[in-house]
């Protein structure tokens, strides 16, 4: 893969890697008495390892000019594999933390294995490791196809992909050592945050530069969603992570915000991370891979534009619904609640648009588990957004807040929507990227589909039951006006649901293991370049019917 880079790009890679190794060395030396020193060591080891990889092909012959007449898919291939690896790690951690709640002894008396440290490894592992890598990999694939242009440069895609994974590794390693900002989904400390800004700005510039060289005049709607994802995540990440470190050799930092302002900034970030990381980017996937797989154009392009702007502008205001009945001014809570309710309109417009696209192709949904993954994802998207608007109502929130209902809601979205649309997209894109006729086994895709659906349903129903029982127990009073149940009574009542939840998660984990095996065997299959199959194989150049590009 290094041989695909031009000699100039190889030299640039070498310079960047050596600079990074020096930064790692400096972190290790200055922070030797602190977890930042361990992080420095990780940076040093990884960048020296990659330096040797680049050196091994530094003097390989220049890649042929023929590459410029092809799309650049190597980073997408590696990104898909990394997504699956992170998915397995993150979901296995999820099963472990779920089991910890049912059987607390599973920490084995180790500090690193306590619930508070394992949980962010699970959340970051699945959201950033699995979801983020899948988003980066598919965004490169979709961007090139819809722009009819090759990625701008070959170095920056690798910088974005590998730099992002370095961030994920630093994050997870830090959690085990107890390094955290204590901000949900923004746990990594200041130096990891600065690194992510550099990586993310490069990602945005790469996207813009590739769009600038597009041959297709119209920017397809999937790109709008991917761009909203990249741009808004940058804004959210920078603002929420404004902090002052104790010293350059110290991992700990203090937020620039305090008290309720800190809470509001955090949940403005936290809810928009759901909106723009876990929704906008994955809607980008949906708007490309679902029509492509179904072989039918999206039902209404107009509706996709209106719902794009609706989601973009409405989500920004919804974060304060996380802070009902707190010190936050009541009008801000009401604002968040109102926008959360209005948000249902563009959300259901997207879900409906996806399902209406499939209307007339239901026989394909029946026969093709890959398309069925995407159909089920759209259904869960509709369910989860309805539930979200409902839970944002202050009076409903008084029952649901701090209970497992919230956890169930998050997983209806994360398993039912995000993971299912990702698996559908991955099963579509893997044969296209590796130029195989199909996945190794359609039966295994079917097995995965039912494991994923069963796992999600078991999980969500367990948490609905658990959450509503918890909420009711916490607000039940006896005749003398005191609480009927102690807190520990509600904990005991949760036990069977926690076992059910861990079982649901286990089913979902088994599903991704089946998926990993299927992808592995697909890659090992002989490339099927048969004249009968024209799906995604290079065809003789045809004059496009649409407005012809000038050059």
């Amino acid at each position, binding site marked *: 893969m290094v041989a695909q880079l031009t000699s100039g790009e190889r030299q640039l890679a070498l310079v960047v890697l050596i600079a990074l190794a020096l930064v790692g060395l400096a972190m290790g030396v200055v922070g030797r008495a602190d977890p930042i020193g361990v992080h420095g060591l990780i940076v040093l080891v990884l960048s020296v390892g990659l330096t040797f990889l680049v050196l091994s092909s530094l003097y390989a012959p220049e890649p042929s000019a023929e590459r*410029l*007449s*092809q*799309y650049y898919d190597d980073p997408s291939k590696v990104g898909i594999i990394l997504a699956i690896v992170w998915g397995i790690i993150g979901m296995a951690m999820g099963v472990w933390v779920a089991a910890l709640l049912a059987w607390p002894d599973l920490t084995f008396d180790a500090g690193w294995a306590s619930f508070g440290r394992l949980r962010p490894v699970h959340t970051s592992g699945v959201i950033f490791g699995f979801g983020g890598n899948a988003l980066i990999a598919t965004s490169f694939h979709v961007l*090139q*196809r*819809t722009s*009819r*242009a*090759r990625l701008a440069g070959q170095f920056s895609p690798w910088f974005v992909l590998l730099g992002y994974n370095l961030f994920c590794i630093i994050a997870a390693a830090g959690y085990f050592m107890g390094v955290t900002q204590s901000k949900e989904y923004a746990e990594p400390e200041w130096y990891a945050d600065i690194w992510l800004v550099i990586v993310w700005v490069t990602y945005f510039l790469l996207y813009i530069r590739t769009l600038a060289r597009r*041959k*297709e005049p*119209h920017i*397809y*709607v*999937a790109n709008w969603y991917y761009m909203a994802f990249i741009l808004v995540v940058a804004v959210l990440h920078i603002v929420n992570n404004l902090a002052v470190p104790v010293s350059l050799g110290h991992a700990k930092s203090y937020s620039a915000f305090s008290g309720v302002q800190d809470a509001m900034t955090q949940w403005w970030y936290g809810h928009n991370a759901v909106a723009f990381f876990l929704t906008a980017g994955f809607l980008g996937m949906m708007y*490309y891979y679902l*029509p*492509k797989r179904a*072989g*039918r*154009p*999206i039902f209404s*392009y*107009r*509706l996709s*534009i*209106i719902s794009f*702007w609706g989601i973009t*502008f409405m989500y920004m205001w919804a974060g304060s619904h996380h802070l009902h009945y707190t010190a936050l001014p009541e009008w801000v809570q009401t604002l968040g609640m109102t926008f959360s309710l209005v948000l249902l309109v563009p959300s259901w417009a997207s879900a409906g648009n996806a399902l209406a696209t499939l209307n007339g192709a239901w026989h394909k949904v029946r026969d093709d588990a890959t398309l069925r993954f995407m159909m089920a994802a759209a259904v869960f998207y509709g369910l989860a957004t309805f539930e979200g608007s409902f839970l944002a109502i202050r009076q409903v929130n008084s029952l649901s807040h701090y209970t497992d209902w919230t956890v169930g809601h998050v997983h209806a979205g994360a398993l039912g929507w995000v993971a299912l649309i990702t698996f559908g997209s991955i099963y579509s894109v893997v044969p*296209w990227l590796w130029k195989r006729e199909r996945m190794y086994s359609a039966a295994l895709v079917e097995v995965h589909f039912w494991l994923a659906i069963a796992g999600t349903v078991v999980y969500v129903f367990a948490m609905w039951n658990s959450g509503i029982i918890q909420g009711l127990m916490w607000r039940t009073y006896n005749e003398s006006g005191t609480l009927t149940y102690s807190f520990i009574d509600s904990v005991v009542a949760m036990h069977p649901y926690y076992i059910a939840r861990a079982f649901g998660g286990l089913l979902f984990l088994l599903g991704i293991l089946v998926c990993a095996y299927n992808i592995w065997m697909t890659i090992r299959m002989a490339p099927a370049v048969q004249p009968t199959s*024209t*799906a*995604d*194989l*290079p*065809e003789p*150049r*045809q004059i*496009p019917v*649409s407005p012809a*590009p000038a*050059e």
Partner: protein
Amino acid sequence: MSLDHETLVAFSKSWGLFYLIALAIGVVIYALWPANLSKFHVAKQSILDEDDKPWT
């Protein structure tokens, strides 16, 4: 002009409201403008092409 709470509330209740509504109207006009329909139609059909090479 000091940037206090009252100033920000006044700004968001006037200009903030105006630009959000103006933007919403603008988006709906753009999406429903009859001349754009053929462009949208080409856009949604074009991703279904089997052509898998960059255009030159």
